[in-house]
């Protein structure tokens, strides 16, 4: 699959579709979508970027959080067509295996995960928080991540992981 080859996410039901162009993790992607396709499903099924998890599917848990033009959004609560002409960053675009984002390093260093399901959304929400507030207090981190639920209740280490990243970035 090349960057210019359109991804067909549609069924063969003959329902009207639209061609959209989205910059995903810095790469221009073209997809043919039904308007009702959710952004989370475009990412996971259409583009095979399965790092974006769908948890509650009801705008509560934040597992599907991605950055949309740099701002954190719940991708289960946006339509793929709304990303036409916009930039989306998923966990796959947060760092590279050889050069992790400091937030990812923090989650490793402080063991900020247990089952890992909430982790991509947590890390993107944390990235957005640090972009706005590079030196958040523990309280600010807890409020900043309050739209993301950890079903293992491993919040203590998640908060430590974000502090770790803040301190690394301050060096």
């Amino acid at each position, binding site marked *: 699959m090349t960057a210019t080859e359109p991804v067909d996410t549609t069924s063969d039901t003959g329902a009207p579709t639209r061609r959209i162009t989205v910059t995903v993790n810095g790469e221009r992607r073209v997809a043919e979508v039904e*308007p*009702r396709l959710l952004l989370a499903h475009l990412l996971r099924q259409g583009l095979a970027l399965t790092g974006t998890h769908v948890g509650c599917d009801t*705008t*509560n848990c934040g597992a599907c959080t991605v950055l949309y033009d740099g701002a954190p959004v719940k991708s*289960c609560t946006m339509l793929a*067509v709304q990303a*036409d002409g916009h930039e989306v960053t998923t966990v796959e675009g947060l760092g590279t295996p050889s050069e992790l984002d400091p937030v990812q390093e923090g989650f490793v260093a402080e063991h900020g995960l247990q089952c890992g399901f909430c982790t991509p959304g947590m890390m993107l929400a944390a990235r957005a*928080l640090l972009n706005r507030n590079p030196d958040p207090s523990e309280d600010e981190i807890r409020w900043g991540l*309050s739209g*993301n639920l950890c079903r293992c209740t491993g919040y203590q280490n998640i908060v430590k992981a974000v502090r770790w990243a803040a301190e690394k970035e301050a060096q």
Partner: protein
Amino acid sequence: MYPSRFRYEAPRTLDEALALLAEHGDEAKILAGGQSLVPMMKLRFAAPGVLVDINGVQGLAYHQEVPGGGLRVGALCRHVDLEHSAILPGAQPTMAAAAPLVADPIVRTRGTLVGSLCHADPQGDWASVMLALDGAVVAASPRGLRTIPVGEFVVGTFQNALEQDEIAVEAVVPAAQGTRSGSYLKLERRVGDFATAGVAVALESDGGRVVRAGIALTGVGPATIAAVDAQQALLGSSLEPDVVERAAELAAAVARPRTDHRGTADYKRHVVATFVRRILTAERAPAGAAA
């Protein structure tokens, strides 16, 4: 979960959006932040035939002061813009208190104040805040603009006063008659949950006396509730302890909560009284210091 099928339109101007509404009537629905509408479409509680996405319409993503203590909030002003506003902390204390409590931080990125008013959920924070502030919604249609007071705009549970061909383009806070004070308190079991109860208080004072008072209640009835008797009790007062107590009792008396897993009706009334008392007692301290 998927929404049922719909036709998607993304107008670039307000006139185009209005033309689409005129063409499609009650089949069409406006999409702004989508943080209530998209979940409702996924659950099939809402199934519009045509979705008119106004996110590409220029000139609606603002909030700005109006001389005399008023404020205008455009239809694409997000909760997050109000949360981090440089204007609100000094000019609109009730709104500044509410903004960080709306939904959760990720939802606040997309959701809008005007959309929250249109959704008319009795759990909506902004409807209480704007009702307490005596605010209004400006609706655009092919006939021009009309201004609808929030008290008339919210007509019931999930029901607003918009006509089929109207788009809510702005919310307005009127000029103040005195110095503004007030706050918003909400009890929720966790961030993003529906409120157990919420209270908005908006005061305007002159010479240490209350000249206008707004009190509105979130999540304790079939729609947002204005505590009119409690407001009246505050007029002319300096928020003396007996006045505060009377207002707290009167506000609790107009609440119409239902017993559910978030608490009993009595408990929720108690929370309302406590929040009214807490906000008014906190407001009294600086006012007394100034006098």
